[in-house]
């Protein structure tokens, strides 16, 4: 705690030095690494034949040598099985020491990259991979949970096209190309206030391999203030009905954000 306070003070140089923050370091021994000491007064030499001299009090005065801390080098490990978001079987990965030890070496997901293990476990990666990229499974997980709001006009007639979806994804900071989007087979057209708050799903393809089904919700929007529909607070929490009844099962099976499990369903 003291260290964090000290660092907080150090980060604000404009704070004047008062009595409170000018306290010396109360716990000088508080270090994680091994303590390395040195005698302040070098010990007197003893004669060649006789043993060591009897120590004086002066010889017990020490000072620290290891003042400047060094960053520890990362640990290299070889995975023994596929780990999501980390790598394939036989991959050599560099990682922070504590994380590598507790999360990979102890459970047996990986082994040390010793020269013997390199011969035994290391595999040079070919094109055969379980995923198109390291982060693809994570994006699948995120996208499958989200609820995309598709804003559509109340005034002008429309049928849902790819660019509607693309533009609304952009609001979520997700950038999608038109090739990746596949819309539902039946066209949806409006403005139709029966569709307000109802759901349908689209499928996205990531790197032309993985596919995700994403839940979408229709919302009618306008520039005219008087025509604006009342805003439903936390609309993403409310499970809506499907536009096409045959899609209801698929929409129910899609995972929802975690906080929604506790919500009571409104009719």
């Amino acid at each position, binding site marked *: 705690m003291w260290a964090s306070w000290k660092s907080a003070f150090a980060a604000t140089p404009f704070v004047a030095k008062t009595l409170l923050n000018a306290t010396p370091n109360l716990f000088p021994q508080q270090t994680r690494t091994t303590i*390395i000491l040195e005698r302040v007064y070098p010990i007197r030499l*003893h004669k060649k034949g006789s043993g060591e001299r009897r120590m004086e009090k002066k010889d017990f*005065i*020490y000072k620290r040598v290891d003042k400047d801390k060094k960053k520890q080098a990362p640990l290299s490990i070889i995975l023994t099985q596929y780990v999501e978001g980390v790598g394939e079987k036989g991959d050599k990965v560099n990682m922070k020491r504590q994380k590598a*030890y507790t999360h990979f*070496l102890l459970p047996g997901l990986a082994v*040390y990259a010793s020269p013997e*293990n390199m011969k035994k476990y290391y595999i040079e990666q070919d094109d055969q991979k379980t995923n198109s990229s390291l982060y693809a499974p994570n994006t699948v997980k995120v996208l499958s949970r989200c609820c995309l709001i598709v804003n559509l006009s109340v005034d002008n007639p429309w049928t849902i096209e790819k660019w509607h979806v693309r533009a609304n994804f952009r609001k979520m900071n997700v950038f999608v190309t038109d090739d990746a989007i596949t819309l539902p087979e039946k066209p949806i057209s409006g403005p139709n206030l029966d569709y307000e708050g109802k759901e349908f799903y689209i499928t996205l393809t990531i790197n032309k391999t993985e596919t995700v089904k994403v839940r979408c919700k229709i919302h009618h929007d306008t520039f005219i203030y008087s025509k604006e529909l009342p805003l439903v607070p936390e609309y993403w929490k409310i499970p809506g009905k499907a536009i096409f009844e045959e899609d209801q099962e698929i929409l129910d099976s899609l995972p929802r954000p975690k906080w929604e499990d506790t919500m009571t369903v409104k009719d």
Partner: protein
Amino acid sequence: MSGPKSNELTKLLYKFPKPNRWQQGIGAELPEAYKKFWKEWKLDRPKPVHWIDKEGKYERWTDGTIRPIQNVDIPLKYPKELDKGIWGGEAVIQGMMKPKHKKRRYVHYWVPQLKRSVVYSEILNKYMNTIVTDRTLNLIHQHYGFDHYILSTKACDLRSLLALNLKRNMLIALYDKTLYPDDPVKQEEVYEKYKHYTEGYTREEIEWYGYSYEEACKMLMINKKKSMVTVPLKVKFREELIQMLKEEKLELVKDEEPVDSEPKSWLSKLNIFKSNSNKSATE
């Protein structure tokens, strides 16, 4: 005679060596295998952890003179808590600090930072929740595994009884090949990996490895009791009696055959006056 060597010899002349625990009592009975371990544990110089040794034989001082380099260790303290964890050679240092030239020195203890962590032994196939330091974990990483670290480091560097006990168990498992009794494939794989560590030891040395002095004495007493066979005295006396009776029978048989010799009864032996009277007569 002159010079340092003669000085040493003359000192020795006036010194009477102190009696130690190996010369008398139970200590003298302890086997040579245990003494070997004791020397490795207590008498060998551990690798410097809390200070840095100077390298080389001589150095030039600032005044221009050339002086020998003498590395004198910083005395360490080994508390009893050390035996319950694996500290990787670290220990407590009692010393003093002096902030400035004209300031009074004050006492200070440097204590290693301890933490709880899990270690996994492949030979024993066990996950253990132990108290370690960061240095221990770094050493485990450096040796590519806990087993390699424990088996390849000397007793003086491991120091704690917990680590030494683990080392003995590992060595016994390797020597007797009792690791992974249910899985022969895994057993062969692990055995091939670690078998070269048992080369320096005999079976007896492994048995006596990693015990403290008190534990070793206890072991000795237990072994002694096991080897001792106590026979009740009544059995011994009965056998003697039977022997005596047999001899008497034989004598009786012998006595019956020759008639001319005087039959001697036991009463004649008890005749007190016989010998005395003879003696007095001669005198």
